[in-house]
Structure formats: C-alpha cells, structure tokens
C-alpha cells in the first residue's frame, strides 16, 4: 500500500545531491568528535549507570509521575498529567484563551512535535515562534525536523538563505554568520513579545520536581524567563528518580549528541522562578504519557523508554546517511523513530519506516543506554506480519529457501540457463525472484555440485581428536562450496574430524528478519534436531549471519513462538556454536594447529561483517590469524561499516544498497591492495559482485580460503 510512495520518497532523497553531501560530511565529522568527547570516560561503565537509572525509572513511571507532581506542585508549579495528546491541546487552548495569549515563543520540545501542537495553536489564532534556530528554519519552510538534535541538517545554507529571504522580504546572502545574526535579531523580538513560553525538558527529577533543559543557543533560558507564563511539555520517559541521576545523563547526552562535554546552557528549574519583572510567574508542567506506560509494560519495547534522544543512532546509520530523516523517520527520526511511531502513532504507521533498517547494528555500540534498535525493528516486523500477513510472494520465497533440494535445484536450473552469460564464475542476469539485485553487482555462479555433495568425497583424517559439525548455510552450500572445503581442510589440519549433518536447513535468518517467526521457528527446530549429536564438540559455520542465528536467535525465536519445550535443546546447541575464525583461533591457541607464515604475500585489507563484529564480537581473531599467516593488513576506512548486503534488503532496496556498497568499494580501493578478506559469504557476494560488475580486479577471499593455503594438509586416512 505505502510501498510505491515509499519508493518514490527514497528515490527523491537519493536524487537530492545536497542532502547526501550534507549528511555524508556530518556522519564523518560526528564519529571523530564523539570519540574525542568521550576521551577519558569509561563508556561501558557510564552505560551501566544509565541503563540502571533509566531502566528503573521506566519500571516505575506511574509512581515517579505522581512523586514529580507532588514535588513540583509543592514548589508552586501546576502539573497536568495526561495520556491523551488531545487533552494537552485542550488544556493549552483553554490556558491561552483564559490569559489572552496571542503570541507564543517555543524552545525545542519533541513532545510538542509528537502531538503537532503548533498546528493546533495556530488554528486557535495564536502566533507560534520556534526559537531554536534549526526548528525555526523548518517552521518557516513548512517542514518537520529531519533530525532530533539538528532539525535542519538536510538544508544547505543556500536553502536557508532562500527561506529567510522570503520571511524578511529581502535578498540575503548564503553567509552563515549573517544568517545566524538575522535569526538573532528576528527572534529577539519574538522572545520579548511573547505572552507565553513553551519549553520541553531533557530530564524531570521526581525527587525534587525539577526540570532540566539543555541548549546551546540559550533560547530555553529566554523562553523560560521573559514571558509571564511558562509551559513545559514533557514526555514521562524523561522522569528519573533522583537528582543525582542527572549527572550521568548529562555526561552522556552532550557527548553523544554533538560531541560536546556539556552544552552551553543547562537550566534546572524547580517550580516558577520570579519573572523578568521580578513578580512571580506561572509555570505549567504537562506530563504526557501517550502510550509510554503501555510501552514500559511490553518486555520487547520497554528498553526504548531509556532513550535520551541524543540521536547518536541516526548519526552512525548508513541508511539515514543516504536518506535523511524525512524519509527514514517520523516525528522522531531513524530506527528509533520507527519504533516510537509504532507506539505514539500506530503499529501500521511504522510499516514503511521500519522496512528501511538494514539490520547492520551500527547503532548498537554507540547507544548510551544500550538500546537494541535492530532487535526491536525485527519485533515490529513480527507484529506487523501477524497483523497483516506476509505478501504471498515473500512467503513463497522464504519457504523455498527452506527446502534445500528445491532451492538448490531452482538456483542451479537458473544458473544453467544463464551459463553462456556466466563470466569468470559470475552471472550478470539471473531470471529469479532476486533478479533485481543484479543491477549493481554480479552474482556468483551456482555450483553444479553443492557443498553437501562435495563433502561426501572428502576423506576425514584418522586419529582425530574432537569432532566438529559443519553448518554450511545457503551461500556456502550452493554458491561458494570452496569456502566449505577450506573450512574442512583447516579443521582437519588441526586433527579435528568434520561431519556434515544432511538434515541441516536454512538458519531462518531471512524469515526472522522479515518477521516470519513461524517459518524461522520451524528452521530452528529442524536444525536443532539435525545437530543433536553428543559426540560433536563444536558446531562451526563460515557464515556469521548463520552463526548468530544458531548461537543467539534460535532460542529467542522459539521462545517468542511459544516453544519453551525446545529451550534446553536450543541452549545446548548454542553452547557449541562457533564462527570459523574464533574456532580456529581457539585451536591455534591450544597448540593444535600451526599456521605457516609465508613471506612475500601481497598485503590485504579486511572487511568486518556486521554480524561478526557486533553480534559475535569476533573482529580480532581473523586479524590475528591473517597476521600469523604472514599477511600485512592495511586497514580500510570504516572497515566495520555495512557493505549494503543485509540479506534480502539488497533485493528490496537495491537503490539504497548500491550507494552503501559504492562507499565500501571506495574504501577498499583507497587501501591500494589487491585482496579484501572477510568472514562472511554474504559480504563476499555483495562486495565481490560489486567489484566484478565495476570491472575491478580486486579479489574477495574468505579468511577460511586464505588460511587453507597456509596449513599443512592432514594425511588422508587409508
């Protein structure tokens, strides 16, 4: 339904050259300034503190709101608590009528964006001036913020000059200091003329009834001082228990938001302070729930209430970087915006936005409150799928991936038909359900003989100690059987016998990430049964996505689908699962395997696969192993940024996948090496296909293939 519209919006955003330029530069600068701001700070310890502070608050929202109300009321504020956005508007409408308010000055409040307060007030005949520079720009442009911290990040100075020129009816130059000076002059009048000021709050302290507001421009100080009436509209997720909780939040928020140690201004008000004329003024505090309490009770989503709106998640997001917040986001931008929209608006409202998440997990390590956005996005997909069902074609495709014989047969048939067009093992055009993906990358040829059949011909060495069961996964089994053979060779060299359980099937990742948990649960059960061999010490895979499924997701999927009876078996399997490089490192460290360092090897670079780095935390072992093999590693820029594959994402949004891939390829080329190593066959398909398509001779190699060349083959048994 919304799909054509979404596609059009994606296309428009990608066409906007100034947007991509602005966001790209921002992304690069942000990463550096954030890192600098956190120098000398133990980020993990700070996260522990914040998770505890915000987690405790989220579990006691009702009590804290009541305590805040009591304290703020005692301090002289009027507190209005409501769960209904319409009631906020009615309250403010009445207040404005009663006090004859004609002009309102606002400092930033996302909660008022959420309930579209400005439109309401303007309908009531009240002039509303946003005073945060970015908010004022988007207000004048008739737009909404495209970023939670920098609302006008999508606009160039030329565009801002155009917007201001229309406002002041005077031709203005695209000179930033000049534009800022104009805003100062124009808005100063609005501050001084306002009858009522509206602020938000970054923290609300229950213990003392205090609101904490951070700004850099100083507009919240003016808004909270100059007009005779002050209103603060605050989401209840801003509540914390104690005053001492403010410290850790303000240690993280400016650093994560803008790379500052502290914002220029931190204002803490407790009840109404005397106004500009010295007389006491009115302070109204509106605590808005709008389904936050309901969210807090949902185990899958309560973590989202820990969000302190620093926007670090979108600042590092490769999709946001391309599309900006008007396409990738609602009122709140990026992945977190999709989640909040599903609650504050409606589940359906998140449908388009959530589909844009590529699941790379770049946002996870930077979140100061350890929110796992990709995980919640998957849960949204599951609920959307339950509510709406999957499109038939998608369901059919997911089922086909499950049936190994059918899947390989179809892939091979397709591959055979296209054989004349296959070039150096790559197929340019594949008449298949994913033919759309060949636009920007070539596909690997489908092996005539899948790995599962090749495996039968490999003789296992005698006298092995320890047995590993190999989990191949689709790509190793059907497209890159050579990787499977390399894995067997390396493990055999360490005296490990390898077995290949025939009944293994798809890991269920495609189904799970599409929200089809019933299909994923079926996969989990089939695989658990297939690998239940007590004589097997390790279950190893050369695909990090499959490894994550086996090690972390089977249990979660089965539990979500109500198969608690499978939990113990899923845990038993998970304990044995290793990614290839981590297992080999274990074997090397145990003295069971020697990697023979070669001299005069060509240097190479290494690409970190999303799942290996951020879910398995195994970015060190492959680098160490390649070093032991004698390779000089020339690190590329942003080695752990997604390659744009994202499984079926590259089929659904090839137009987004491609520029993400292009950036990766640029970073690979900048190292000047001839080989890019990685641990993931999915990334190989994406990066290798992109290089091939571009006519680039740089090779992609799996770490298993590189190591297989540097081990002494095991003596075959007789």
């Amino acid at each position, binding site marked *: 339904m919304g799909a054509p519209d979404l596609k059009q919006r994606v296309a428009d955003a990608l066409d906007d050259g100034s947007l991509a330029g*602005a966001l790209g*530069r*921002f992304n690069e*600068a942000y990463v550096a300034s954030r890192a600098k701001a956190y120098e000398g700070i133990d980020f993990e310890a700070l996260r522990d503190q914040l998770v505890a502070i915000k987690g405790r608050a989220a579990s006691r929202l009702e009590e804290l709101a009541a305590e805040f109300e009591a*304290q703020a009321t005692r301090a002289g504020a009027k507190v209005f608590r409501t769960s209904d956005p319409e009631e906020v508007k009615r309250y403010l409408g009445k207040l404005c009528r009663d006090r004859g308010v004609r002009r309102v000055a606002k400092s930033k409040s996302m909660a008022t964006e959420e309930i579209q307060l400005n439109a309401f007030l303007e309908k009531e005949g009240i002039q509303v001036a946003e*005073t*945060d*520079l*970015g908010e004022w*720009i988007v207000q004048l442009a008739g737009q909404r913020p495209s970023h939670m911290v*920098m609302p*006008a*990040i999508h*606009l*160039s*100075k030329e565009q*801002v000059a155009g917007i201001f020129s229309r406002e002041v009816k005077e031709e203005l130059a695209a000179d*930033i200091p000049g*534009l*800022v000076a104009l805003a*100062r002059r124009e808005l*100063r009048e609005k*501050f*001084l003329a306002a009858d009522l000021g509206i602020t938000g709050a970054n923290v609300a*302290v229950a213990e*003392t009834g*205090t609101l904490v507001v951070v700004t*850099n*421009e*100083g*507009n919240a*100080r*003016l808004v*909270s*001082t*100059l007009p005779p009436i002050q209103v603060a509209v605050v989401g209840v997720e801003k509540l914390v228990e104690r*005053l*001492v909780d*403010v*410290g850790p939040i*303000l*240690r993280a928020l400016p650093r994560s938001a*803008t790379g*500052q*140690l*502290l914002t*220029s*201004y*931190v*204002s*803490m*008000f*407790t*009840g109404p*302070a*005397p*106004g*500009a*004329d*010295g007389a006491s003024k009115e302070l109204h505090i509106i605590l808005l729930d709008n389904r936050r309490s309901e969210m807090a009770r949902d185990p899958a989503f309560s973590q989202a209430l820990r969000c302190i709106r620093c926007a670090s998640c979108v600042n590092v997001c490769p999709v946001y970087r391309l599309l900006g917040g008007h396409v990738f986001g609602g009122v709140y931008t990026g992945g977190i915006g999709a989640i909040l929209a599903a609650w504050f608006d409606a589940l359906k409202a998140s449908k388009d936005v959530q589909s844009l998440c590529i699941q790379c997990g770049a946002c996870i390590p930077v979140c100061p409150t350890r929110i796992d956005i990709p995980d919640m996005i998957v849960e949204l997909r599951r609920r959307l799928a339950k509510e709406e069902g999957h499109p038939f074609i998608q369901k059919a495709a997911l089922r086909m991936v499950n049936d190994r014989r059918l899947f390989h047969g179809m892939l091979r048939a397709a591959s055979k038909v296209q054989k004349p067009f296959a070039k150096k093992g790559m197929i340019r055009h594949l008449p298949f359900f994913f033919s759309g993906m060949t636009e920007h990358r070539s596909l690997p040829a489908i092996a005539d003989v899948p790995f599962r059949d090749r495996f039968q011909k490999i003789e296992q060495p005698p006298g092995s100690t320890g047995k590993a069961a190999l989990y191949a996964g689709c790509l190793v089994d059907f497209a890159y059987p050579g990787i499977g053979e390399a894995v067997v060779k390396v493990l055999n060299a360490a005296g490990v016998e390898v077995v290949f359980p025939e009944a293994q099937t798809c890991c269920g990742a495609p189904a799970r990430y599409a929200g089809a948990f019933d299909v994923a649960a079926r996969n989990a059960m089939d695989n658990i049964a297939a690998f239940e061999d007590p004589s097997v010490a390790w279950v190893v895979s050369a695909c990090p996505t499959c490894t994550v499924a086996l090690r972390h997701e089977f249990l979660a999927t089965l539990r979500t689908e109500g198969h608690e009876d499978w939990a113990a078996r899923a845990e038993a399997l998970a304990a044995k699962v290793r990614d290839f490089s981590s297992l080999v490192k274990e074997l090397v460290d145990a003295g069971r395997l020697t990697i023979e360092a070669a001299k005069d090897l060509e240097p190479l670079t290494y690409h970190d696969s999303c799942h290996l780095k951020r879910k398995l935390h195994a970015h060190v072992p492959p680098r160490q192993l390649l070093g032991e093999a004698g390779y000089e590693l020339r690190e590329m820029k942003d080695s752990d940024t997604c390659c744009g594959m994202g499984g079926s994402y590259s089929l659904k949004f090839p137009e987004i996948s491609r520029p993400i891939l292009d950036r990766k390829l640029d970073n690979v080329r900048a190292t000047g090496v001839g080989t890019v190593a990685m641990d993931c066959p999915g990334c190989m398909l994406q990066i290798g296909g992109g290089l091939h398509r571009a006519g680039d001779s740089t090779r992609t190699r799996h770490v298993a293939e590189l190591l297989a060349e540097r081990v002494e083959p095991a003596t075959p048994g007789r």
Partner: protein
Amino acid sequence: MFELFRTKAQAVSSEVHRVPAAGPALDLVLAVLDREGVADVRGARAVWCEGPILGGLVDQATLARRFPGLSFDVTRERAAESRVGITEFDWALAATGTIAQDATDPRLRLASMLTETHVALFRTSTLLPDLDALLARVDPRKARYLACVTGPSRTADIERVLTIGVHGPRKLVVIAVDGEIGVA
C-alpha cells in the same frame, strides 16, 4: 584543578582570567567596559548585577559617571539594550569549564542572556570538580533556577558550522577571583 577549568573553558571559547583579589577583578571588569565601548546608546549600554564578590568595592555613582550607559538597575528593557552584562557566579566546574549560579533572581538571568558580552566573576575557592559535585551540594528546591553556563551561546544548526552568539552572549569573559570574600 584551576588549570583544568581554564583549559576546558577556553576550549569552548570563554575568555578566562584569574586575579589574586577583588581589587584587580574590579579593574578587569572596568577594562572590559572600556574595551567594549560601552556608551549611553541603545545597544551599547551595560547592566551590572552586583554581588558579594565585588559588592564592597563598587562605587555606583562614580562608575555611572565614568561609563555613561552603565546601570545597576537591571530591568528587562535595560538588559535588552545593553552590550555588556556583569554578574557573579556561585560555583565553577573544572571538568567542563562551566560556571554555575543560583539564578532565581531574574536580574542575574537578564544581565547574562540578553547582552552580547557577559562578564562572569566567581571565587576560585568555589571551583568544584564537576556537575556531580554541584548536584551533591545544591538543593534545587532552594536554588529554584539553577543555571550552568559553558562558554558563549552557540549553534551549528546551519550546515553544522559552529557559529558563536545566537540568542545569548557572543562573548563570555570569566574572571576567577582568589582570596577571601570582602578582602580587596
């Protein structure tokens, strides 16, 4: 600790001075008034919110004669027409180069937010390590409007280009005053 404060405050574009006593602090404030060209013209005036640090030394009548346009009566209108605002702060935070103040008295806010140059004095002895230390000793139910200021007003809302002086001061002059209160 002061050197940390100085480094952090300068990193956010504050002008930092340290003087041995209130007397030299007063001289410094007057030098700033001179430097900024304070005059009895709309936009070039000055407001001075007296406090305990310089309180005993300020001869209002003499200073008002020396600096036409300088007023000790801080009103909204007066502050809005002023180029320089002078206030005293209660604490400073070393880790972030921040000055902090119980700004419940609205004159403190008016003089420090509507002017272009804000001169802020604090006692060096009130320097604290960080915000946590401040929150441990301040009860916001008493200090009802607690203001922390870290450098001049700034924005990066247009193309992320840092621009100083949006709604608040363009310059922040911080003067740390050593010695005891009331000792010139």
